[in-house]
């Protein structure tokens, strides 16, 4: 004899925006719980920024070939490396969608009443959480290497916000790529093609003033440039800022909003 079940009706009395937030956070929670069960991914992601800072950064700091506006080169590049490690992680995030599609997990989300925007936002939040852990490791290594970090609460909060926005933006971009290419093999190729141009057409490891005009115009439409610009100001003492925090935030927010609206439209096509 099986036990009795409760009342045979659903529950839709709550305020819709509250349910929307609950649905988006459920998507993020699912991913974060998986990270807690198996944190290996977080640990492996920490290797790359450490190598860039410790090896590349220290070697290039000796050349003194890059005009950094008076900043030690390690100080100049630390925000760029944080942005880069978040970008590299986020840009391959879409492959998890293809993997979950192949397993059948995505179907469960798509057949639920959760709006597609909530599903996309939930994944963006999960990517932002990964970005937070990368921020922690970059801060630790940077401090050990003597980088002059701004350690005031407001500045750190600003860094976390910018990193979260960057991670959310690039992971949503990756989600769109996954919905278009649909297969893991093709996605890996696309991911490789996307990361390097985004990284090198930005101010992550050299200033915009060093770039030829064509590259500078390209970098001006690259959200990574604005992310690095804001990070350099918020992370580093006397880091300076080229566009202004308002412009940086606006560009990142606009890019994120645009990508979310595209991803929400394309999301159901992943299973077709």
């Amino acid at each position, binding site marked *: 004899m099986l036990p009795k079940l409760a009342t*045979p009706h659903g529950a839709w009395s709550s305020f819709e925006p509250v349910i929307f937030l609950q649905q988006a956070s459920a998507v993020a929670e699912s991913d974060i719980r998986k990270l807690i069960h198996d944190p290996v991914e977080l640990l492996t992601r920490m290797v790359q920024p450490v190598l860039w800072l410790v090896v590349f950064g220290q070697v290039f700091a000796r050349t003194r070939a890059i005009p950094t506006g008076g900043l030690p080169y390690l100080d100049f590049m630390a925000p760029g490396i944080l942005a880069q490690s978040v970008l590299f992680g986020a840009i391959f995030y879409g492959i998890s969608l293809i993997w979950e599609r192949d397993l059948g997990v995505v179907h469960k989300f798509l057949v639920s009443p959760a709006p597609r925007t909530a599903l996309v936002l939930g994944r963006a939040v999960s990517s932002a959480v990964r970005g937070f852990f990368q921020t922690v490791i970059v801060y630790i290594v940077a401090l050990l290497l003597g980088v002059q970090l701004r350690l005031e609460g407001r500045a750190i909060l600003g860094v976390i916000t910018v990193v979260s926005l960057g991670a959310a933006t690039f992971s949503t971009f990756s989600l769109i790529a996954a919905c278009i290419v649909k297969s893991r093999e093709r996605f890996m190729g696309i991911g490789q093609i996307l990361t390097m141009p985004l990284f090198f057409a930005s101010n992550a490891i050299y200033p915009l003033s060093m770039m030829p005009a064509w590259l500078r115009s390209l970098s001006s439409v690259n959200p990574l440039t604005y992310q690095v610009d804001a990070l350099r100001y918020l992370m580093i003492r006397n880091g300076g800022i080229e566009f202004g925090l308002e412009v940086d935030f606006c560009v990142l927010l606009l890019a994120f909003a645009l990508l979310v609206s595209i991803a929400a439209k394309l999301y159901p096509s992943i299973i077709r």
Partner: protein
Amino acid sequence: MAVNALTFSVSTGTVFGLLGPNGAGKSTLIKMLTTLLPPSSGTALVAGFDILLQPKEVRRHIGYVSQMLSADGELTGYENLLISAKLYGLSRAERAERIGQALEFMQLEEASRRLVKHYSGGMIRRLEIAQSMLHRPQVLFLDEPTVGLDPNAKHSVWQRISELRQQLGTSVFMTTHDMEEADHLCDTIAFMHQGKLLASGSPAELKSALGPGASLDDVFIHYSGTSIAEGGTLRDVAQTRYTARRLE
């Protein structure tokens, strides 16, 4: 064309079984009815809602267990239920109550804190059905719910499907290749082949129409023919085999 100009209705509170060879269009039809795939023309009402005009309402009133494994192996059974409950907008109190009941009903209480990747096939299927029923849908879609399960696990799933229907009055729309399953669970069966519905009726009606002593296997062969040219796409076959292997 996977599904071609179908017209049929399913009575409330009954179990409707869709049978047919691989590649007949069964899973495509389920994807359309669950709003995962838009039809190129025509429409359907599910739980009284139009799949094209009111997809969100349809999704609120249905549960779906896909042919593949929708339970996340990297989460525990409890976590899988919790995420589903949140996706369906259940309040905190409802979540606690219904997850507790679901675990008890599916006899998964002891395993609830274990990762699903360590569950047996039968436990995974019971968990998936529990997930799809947390919001008490009016219609439950099951796409080959017992593929890859051993007889014990299969009977355990059947028992729960029957019980859900009895206790909650849920209408069940299922596909299967298992004629014993169709005979055991379904009030009405429809045969589908090359995207079209060829026949429908109760299992007894379909068998007697073929002659005395006919089984559902005979009915299946009669309507689907013996052609080996069908069988779905490579992806369909790979997914079914993958699911069966994981549930073993």
